[in-house]
């Protein structure tokens, strides 16, 4: 097999908040059609890394390449425009808006012609297309004109992930997508991740639930204290060895 080009490459990025060094020269590569698990204890720098990749924060130094092109995102919009979608922990959707409005938030379908130029939304089209888009990634929503606040936690998460996958062109960042979900709902989310992988997207999956990480990922990047301490195919890990490298026990044991 020839060496493929990475769809996402992070080169030596560092970020500090005041005197706290959140990321220290973090580097890794990610490929299309690959699910990468990003794991680490609280404060390991996972969320900071995600924020840098999604354009929310700018790293102090280092470079990010998407499809071989150097990017220096100044805002989330720029990252989105480049093809990266992010699902943030617990706060991806506007609960008072309908499912359709949420799926199309930030890229609304406008009415045709003059009305559209005047800012009028085509709500019908958005509701209908949202259902289609969600169905395509394996989420069926029989009821669309409901606000997200009327859905259960698992349903909300399904909609949020479905939205991210249907919009992502290259990379999708999932920050703790199975948090607060029941076992069955979590499995549903994992199956949606498989669907994203089949579509050729690169999925970066952050989770504290190690069985989920071992189940769905192809490769695992372990972070500790702002640094990448291990980057290896999932098959090389067991539950014990993964836990050991997260906590740092692996090095103590040699």
């Amino acid at each position, binding site marked *: 097999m020839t060496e493929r080009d990475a769809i996402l490459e992070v080169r030596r990025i560092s970020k500090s908040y005041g005197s706290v060094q959140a990321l220290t020269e973090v580097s890794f590569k990610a490929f299309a059609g690959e699910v990468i698990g990003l794991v680490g204890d609280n404060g390991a720098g996972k969320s900071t890394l995600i924020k840098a990749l999604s354009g929310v924060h700018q790293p102090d130094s280092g470079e990010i390449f998407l499809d071989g092109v150097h990017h220096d995102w100044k805002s989330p919009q720029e990252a989105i425009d480049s093809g990266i979608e992010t699902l943030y922990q617990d706060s991806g959707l506007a609960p008072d808006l309908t499912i359709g409005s949420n799926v199309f938030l930030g890229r609304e379908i406008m009415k045709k012609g003059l009305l559209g130029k005047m800012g009028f939304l085509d709500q019908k089209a958005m509701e209908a297309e949202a259902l289609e888009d969600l169905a395509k990634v394996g989420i069926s929503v029989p*009821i669309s004109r409901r606000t997200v606040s009327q859905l259960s936690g698992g349903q909300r998460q399904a909609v949020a992930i479905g939205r991210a996958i249907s919009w992502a062109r290259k990379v999708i960042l999932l920050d703790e997508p199975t948090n607060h979900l029941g076992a069955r709902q979590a499995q549903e989310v994992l199956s949606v991740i498989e669907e994203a992988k089949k579509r050729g997207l690169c999925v970066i999956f952050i989770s504290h639930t190690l069985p989920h990480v071992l189940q769905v990922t192809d490769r695992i990047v372990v972070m500790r204290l702002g640094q990448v301490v291990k980057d290896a195919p999932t098959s090389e890990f067991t539950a014990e060895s993964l836990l050991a490298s997260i906590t740092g026990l692996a090095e103590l044991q040699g």
Partner: protein
Amino acid sequence: MPENDRPVLTSSPETPRNRVREILSNQQFLLFVVLIALMTYFYSRNHYFFTVGEFQNIFTNFSGYALLAVGEMFVIVAGGIDLSVGSTVAVSGVLGAWVMNGMMNGHGNQFWVLTVGTLICGLVGAFVGFLNALMITKAKLVPFVATLVTLSAGLGFALLFAQFFNSGQPVGSDPAAAVFSSKAIWVFTYPAIFVILIVIVAGIVLHLTKYGRYTYAIGSNAFAARAVGINVQRHVGSVYILSGFLAGLTGMFYFMQLGSGAPTSGDGFELTAIAAVVIGGASLTGGRGRMSGTVLGVFVLTVVTFGLVFINVPPAWTQIVVGGFIALAATLQSLRPSGRKSV
């Protein structure tokens, strides 16, 4: 992937029974019932309640509050609060009156005087809104505090200007404006017609356009709005400018009612506007509410105020009844199923 593996969103299908429950839990529907009941009661106590003259009065008073409440509605839906609108009415009314007075001394054409006056009032209001926007989005003040600053300072400036222009008396005297504002088509006075048009446009903007959608999205979950690329700071700023602009137009409205610009003309109006929005079903935490609810809220407040006077109830009672309405509306809101900020 097998069909049964799919996450299926199947919470309570829309049965006719759910539909009925939805209507009953709909604050606007209840408000409408209350409105009809109130009007029937006032009519039964005094048959002169249903006259063209009385309804002209009701619609005129409705209009002044409606303009303010509509601007306040945008701010509240976006998750903010604007306490400065009452002072903005005063300061724009005084400044507008001064300019219009100057134009009339130069024998300006009545139509132009009123047009320029409207523009000046709107601009002064938008400027106050701009100051609010700066304090909230740049200096990161909490909206309550930022608009408290302009509430206080705005009133002070209105008094100062009045002192300077006309030794503290209401500024300008324009009986012609008052005459114009009392002309009417059926129950709608001319200014009321303008206001109703503005309210309709505002409702369309809030519910059918991208601008309105972003306003809801920000009030519902500002983080999510930013994450999808909405420029939250700029949008929030624009909402305060809009609220200020409408408050400025309200200043012009009261100039036309009184024929002069009085520094006390907007006293306490911000509370009436906020009350109307809350009674109409909007949530003070943002993201919820409909323009039709706010309009109904203003209407109920106006009818209560008028009706109680009409059946000779002491005015103090009006305040108490309004308080009761707010309590009722807030209770209804707390009973509604909440899907709050976290998703």
